[in-house]
């Protein structure tokens, strides 16, 4: 029953006007009408009554309906700091600089000699380096520096971590020796290499500079690659990377897992028969895996579980596995491998008991962003497998391939911070562009909050780039940025352009609205006629 069915009752014409009755009046009624005498004029009372009825409907629509319409369909757009967001995306807000502090311990040298060596080496380094974002800064270790009032290394903040310590030791031949478990580089020099204070360059300085450059080349390439793939202004990027370097770095990107504070490691033993039903995994993990994981503590935490699956058949059969078979080896349908516990990404390590051969040699392979597989017939000794897994884990976490473990970890921190920083900045830019491109998209308060959190932590990350805190801030920023960008209630609106609103309003409001509007027109016409008649 449309609301107007009671409204336009018109007794003045001697007829009822009931909408529901309209179609059902027999035809003879129409033919009878002309014969009837003209109906008497409508009484002023009934005219007034009718106008009141029409007004009562319109009053409700205007007084209650319009505000409700306005309030419930208005799109809430929280204001976003668009300029700041674009600044971050374009790299204007932050210049990612990684000052690496390298301390030189030269106890055997005279003070002035050490100072001079430092100067010349720094000079040689600066000449070699063409990438301003990645900057090696030398300084004398405190034992030396304490004797010099103003060294080159002014302004070094004490709590800032040292990237490397170089120990200069006298020796018979010049050679560099990187210690395995500490970020210490021992450099042996022959006495004739000590520079005289007059010469502007020294062979020892050049030697140190070249060694350092070699050591940090990979990290530099990684950061350069990250910058070149981001939307940072081109003048900030270094000269184009060599194609083969770029290719290997692209592989590195696809191989490594997305950074997370916690990873879950699953070690699985799959066997096609009923044996072996147990393996000495706990001791093996304790012995070979735990130390590595502990050294990662500042970057990521790990949770571990293990499982044994009997009668497991791989996804491919045959004794020789071809290279293209390897991706299908994991029987994803039947092997219980995807329980992401607690939301942390899972890294799988699988030992498959069997004597299959892989074409081209080797019995293990790495599956990018997923884990590693080893085929091994004898599981009495798990040490080789654990060593392979450790290597695969380093790879999957995105650590560089060369260098000693502490250096690799430190590089990983820097590279990860840079990656997260750039990613969060890029997301900010995308969100800002999206906001500008779609004026009808709603922006809930949570998105604005996320943006402010992101920018705050980006700022902190940018200030503390290269350190532990920088990584943590970058991670928070990236998380907040992703959350803001993928806000659900925002995405829903994208698929609802203005044209569709007509389709929502019309079916319901059309049938109700047309009689209401028509009644107003009719009343207005009747009123005009009456006024003309009375004049």
């Amino acid at each position, binding site marked *: *029953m449309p*609301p107007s*069915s*009671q*409204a336009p*009752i*018109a*007794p003045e*014409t*001697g*007829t*009822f*006007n*009931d*909408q*529901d*009755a*309209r179609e*059902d*009046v*027999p035809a*003879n*009624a*129409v033919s*009878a*009408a002309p014969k009837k005498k003209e109906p*008497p004029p409508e009484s002023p009372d009934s005219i007034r*009554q009718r106008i*009141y*009825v029409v007004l*009562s*409907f319109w*009053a*409700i*629509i205007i007084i*209650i*309906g319009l505000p*409700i*319409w306005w309030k*419930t*369909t208005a799109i809430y757009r929280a204001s976003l700091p668009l300029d700041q967001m674009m600044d971050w995306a374009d790299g204007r807000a932050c210049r990612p600089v990684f000052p690496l502090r390298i301390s030189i311990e030269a106890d055997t040298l005279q003070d002035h000699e050490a100072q001079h060596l430092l100067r010349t080496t720094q000079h040689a380094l600066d000449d070699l380096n063409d990438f301003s974002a990645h900057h090696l800064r030398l300084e004398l270790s405190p034992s030396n520096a304490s004797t010099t009032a103003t060294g080159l290394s002014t302004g070094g903040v004490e709590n800032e971590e040292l990237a490397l310590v170089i120990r200069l030791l006298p020796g018979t031949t010049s050679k560099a020796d990187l210690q395995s478990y500490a970020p210490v580089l021992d450099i042996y020099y022959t006495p004739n290499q000590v520079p005289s204070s007059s010469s502007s360059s020294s062979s020892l300085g050049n030697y140190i500079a070249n060694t350092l450059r070699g050591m940090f080349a990979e990290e530099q390439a990684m950061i350069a690659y990250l910058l070149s793939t981001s939307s940072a202004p081109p003048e900030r990027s270094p000269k184009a990377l060599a194609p083969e370097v770029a290719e290997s770095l692209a592989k590195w990107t696809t191989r490594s897992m997305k950074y997370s504070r916690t990873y879950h490691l699953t070690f699985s033993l799959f066997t096609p028969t009923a044996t072996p039903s147990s393996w000495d995994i706990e001791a093996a993990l304790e012995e070979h895996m735990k130390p590595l994981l502990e050294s990662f503590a500042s970057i990521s935490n790990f949770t571990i579980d293990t499982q044994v699956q009997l009668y497991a058949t791989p996804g491919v059969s045959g004794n020789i596995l071809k290279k293209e078979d390897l991706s299908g080896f994991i029987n994803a349908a039947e092997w219980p491998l995807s329980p992401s516990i607690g939301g942390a990404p899972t890294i799988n390590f699988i030992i498959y008991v069997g004597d299959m051969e892989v074409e081209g040699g080797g019995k293990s392979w790495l599956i990018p962003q997923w884990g590693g597989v080893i085929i091994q017939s004898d599981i009495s000794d798990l040490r080789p497998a654990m060593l392979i897994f450790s290597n695969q884990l380093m790879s999957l976490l995105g650590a560089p391939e060369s260098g000693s473990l502490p250096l690799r970890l430190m590089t990983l921190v820097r590279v990860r911070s840079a990656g997260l920083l750039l990613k969060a900045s890029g997301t900010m830019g995308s969100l800002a562009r999206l906001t500008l491109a779609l004026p009808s998209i*709603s922006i809930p308060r949570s998105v604005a909050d996320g943006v402010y959190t992101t920018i705050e932590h980006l700022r902190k990350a940018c200030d503390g780039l290269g350190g532990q805190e920088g990584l943590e801030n970058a991670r928070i920023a990236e998380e907040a940025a992703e959350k803001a960008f993928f806000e659900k209630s925002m995405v*829903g*609106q994208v698929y*609802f352009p203005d044209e569709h609103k007509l389709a*929502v309003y019309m079916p*319901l*409001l059309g049938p*109700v609205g047309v009689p209401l509007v028509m009644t107003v027109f009719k009343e207005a016409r009747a009123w005009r006629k009456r006024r003309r008649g009375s004049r």
Partner: protein
Amino acid sequence: MMSIDRRKATLFGAAAAVRLLLFTSFPGLPDLLTARVEISTPVTSFKRLQEGLFLYNHNVSPYDGGVYHQAPLLLPLFSLLPSSATYPAFTYLLYVLLDLLSASALMSIAESGEAVSSKLFTSPRKDKRWSSFAIAAAFLFNPFTIATCIGRPTSVFTTCAILHAIAKAVNGNSFTAMFALSFAAYLSMYPILLFPPLALLCYDRRKPLKNPESMYSFVTGNAIAVGGSLYSLLHMSSLITGSWEFLSSTYGVQLLLPDLTPNVGLWWYFFIEMFDSFRNFFLGVFWIHLSAYVAGLTIRLRRQPLFVLTLLLGIFAIFKPYPSISDTSLFLAMLPLYRHVFPLMRYTFLASSTVLYATLLGPAFYYLWIYAGSGNANFFYAITLVWSLGLSLLTSDALFAVLRDELEVERPDLKGKEIRQI
């Protein structure tokens, strides 16, 4: 006089006997009907009342579970009764009593003759009315009323309160009427929309005074009475539950429709399908649609406020957020008061057969959808559309008949002639 009393006693006795017989001889029937979506809605269900009662008796807020959406004052009332699980007879007797009270209120409305001859209008067909006995019988033996009584939804309380409000209004006790209306509004919210016609009815039927007050001051006084009694009821509720949070769990649920359990109304399916971003807007539209009729009908039918009440009850039974057959039974209780205009109605057969058709097929389609799984939600929604169509046909046809009746007083020459709209 004596014989009328005896007839009334017989009628009430028979009605009570039928209900008690159904309660006792079919022990599974009350629970079966309680679970039917046609009878129990989220805001009236007896099952949900039990849940709220359990929480209330264990000193937990009854609204904590998110199941109970009914008025808080029902809780102390039901906790006074012995538990319906162990002694169901007390609950049965309460519901039977409520039905009988409603019927007695209906009888007093019928006896007043307001339906055929109000202060401003007297129908030329006024002698063709049914006796109050027949009207009460039509209410008490209406299968919808009986099914509602057995299913024990709390809408029975609302029905009783509304009928008493009207009965008191017809007898000129405006303040009692207003209190009954506030109680109905307190229980179910929507009866507050009945205030304008009810106030006019009170105004028309008030006892003649030496210096009669104007209509505006009378209506204002009544509005204050309603406001005051509503406030005291709500305040009592907040004392009982210890906070005002019941407002959002009772009236908020009626306004915002968070529970989309199917019922015989039109809202649930619509809001299942509605785009989320337009949900609030269309909630507003539906509520405005429901309340828009009040003013228009009250103005147009100023001379017959009792009929406005009848029509509004019919409209509410179709368009309110959680309707059930209990609302229909209330409308069908009031409709026989207008026996004298029945001959002017044109679609009585169509409307009644549509309602009957929907009554029979509704449960069948619901079974196909929910239990057999061979149908889907559209089956049941289609049948609720038919049901609503039948009821709106009945409502608009009754309106047509009453307007035609009014017209024949104004223009006696048109009696018996066909009419059409121009």
